[in-house]
């Protein structure tokens, strides 16, 4: 990290470029895959396989009127969509895509990711509050409660991995998985992290803060144009981030048989989890709000604590 070579800036630029493009490409991937799962065609008119829908969508978002409601709290209203994009992009700083391809190998990498994801909650809360609209406020309150609750399990479920690898640094966590990927000893932690990750990115089936059938669009009802686009892009980058984290923490990151370069392994694994996210959206109904909270606090929290205690006991037992 100390050698700030041009290579270093190349990595930063590369990560930024790739992530923003992945988010855009996911628009197309999601629509095509949803259509596939639901036995429809999906977008197939503009360009080969409908690929140009990404361009059409972006141009539409850029040229739409960017309207700020007169009853909104203007500075906060403008700030909110920026927060989600900034926090998600900041989280990519600590993700090791391949040996050497990482922006900063912090020794608190995992905590940095948790910190950034907890700051992401502000975009929902502030966006919903600043809109000064009943539905937005309801969405924001649901979002705040959901994200705060699921952050708890998210953090605790990761601690099993930290116990096994003995480090918060993501590079060291990946290196510690040379023998055995962590999803085998940490299967409970993995499942809980995955569920919490869906709730953190407020994707279906846990998209309760926006729940279009009951809250119009929840916290971003009043947003239009590129400000809405920021929430949209932020969500896609969020699921990319969670997929990257799952791969890094539980599926050996860049590790894999030698016939493919490490970065390709990382991308393949991440793509697999992105598809799972989309498949979940296509197949799961949305739970009721109180069901979500009950499920979190009464099922996931005890399970997480149990997992943590058992892991700690096993680690102690093995080391003695």
């Amino acid at each position, binding site marked *: 990290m100390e050698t700030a070579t041009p290579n270093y800036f190349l990595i930063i630029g590369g990560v930024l470029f790739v992530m923003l493009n992945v988010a855009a490409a996911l628009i197309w991937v999601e629509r095509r895959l949803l259509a596939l799962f639901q036995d429809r065609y999906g977008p197939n008119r503009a360009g080969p396989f409908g690929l140009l829908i990404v361009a059409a969508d972006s141009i539409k978002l850029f040229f739409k009127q960017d309207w700020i409601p007169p009853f909104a709290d203007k*500075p906060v209203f403008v700030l909110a969509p920026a927060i989600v994009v900034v926090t998600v992009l900041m989280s990519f700083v600590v993700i090791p895509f391949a040996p050497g391809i990482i922006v900063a190998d912090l020794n*608190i990498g995992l905590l940095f990711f*948790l910190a950034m994801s*907890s700051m992401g*909650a502000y975009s929902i*809360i*502030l966006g919903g*509050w600043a809109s000064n609209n009943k539905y937005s406020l309801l969405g924001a309150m649901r979002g705040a409660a959901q994200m705060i609750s699921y952050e708890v399990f998210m953090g605790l479920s990761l601690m099993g991995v930290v116990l096994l690898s003995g480090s918060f640094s993501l590079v060291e966590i990946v290196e510690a998985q040379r023998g055995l990927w962590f999803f085998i000893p940490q299967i409970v932690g993995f499942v809980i992290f995955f569920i919490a990750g869906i709730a953190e990115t407020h994707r279906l089936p846990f998209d309760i803060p926006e729940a279009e059938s009951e809250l119009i669009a929840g916290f971003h009802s009043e947003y239009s144009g590129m400000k809405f686009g920021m929430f949209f892009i932020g969500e896609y980058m969020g699921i990319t981030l969670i997929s990257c984290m799952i791969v890094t923490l539980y599926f050996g990151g860049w590790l894999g048989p030698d016939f493919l370069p490490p970065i390709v392994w990382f991308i393949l694994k991440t793509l697999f989890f992105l598809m799972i996210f989309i498949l979940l959206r296509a197949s799961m109904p949305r739970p009721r709000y109180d069901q979500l909270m009950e499920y979190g606090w009464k099922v996931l929290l005890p399970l997480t604590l149990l997992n943590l205690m058992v892991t700690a006991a096993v680690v102690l037992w093995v080391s003695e």
Partner: protein
Amino acid sequence: MELTFYIAAAVAILSTIMVITRYNIIHALLYLVVSFLAVAVVFFTLGAPFMAALEIIIYAGAIVVLIIFVIMMLNLTQEDVQREKEWLKPSVWVGPAILSAVLLAELVYIVAAGTPPQTEAVVAVDARLVGLSLFGPYILGVQLCGILLTAGIVGAYHLGRQKKKVIHRFLQERSAAA
């Protein structure tokens, strides 16, 4: 590193002043978040990255969100902003401000006259060291915190306990009949 410390410290102080002087509570809380973030950077520059991360996760990420959560339910209007404005009269803040100014003057004097603190001896305090000291010399404090938290959880459960409501109307009729 020294420059980042001074910048972060200045941001922390400025944003904390903004917290006190804003009439709109949400804006004040936003400045509070900025203040916490600045304090986290201060921790980081002083060689405590673990504390910095916890500062963001716990204070900026959880506690302030909960405060905002409560304030959102209050439905504040322009009248409340006006009332806040009336409350913040000079007669209220002049006294504390003078006392703080005295403290500030003392601090400036100490910093200017006293020996500069040894910045070379900074040791990075990582998670392992924090854990060792928490479960070593400070084990009593950890256990007391545990008891306090347990009491808090039991109390919250008691306050929040209610009979399970049947929300669906068909089920309600059936349970009334049974």
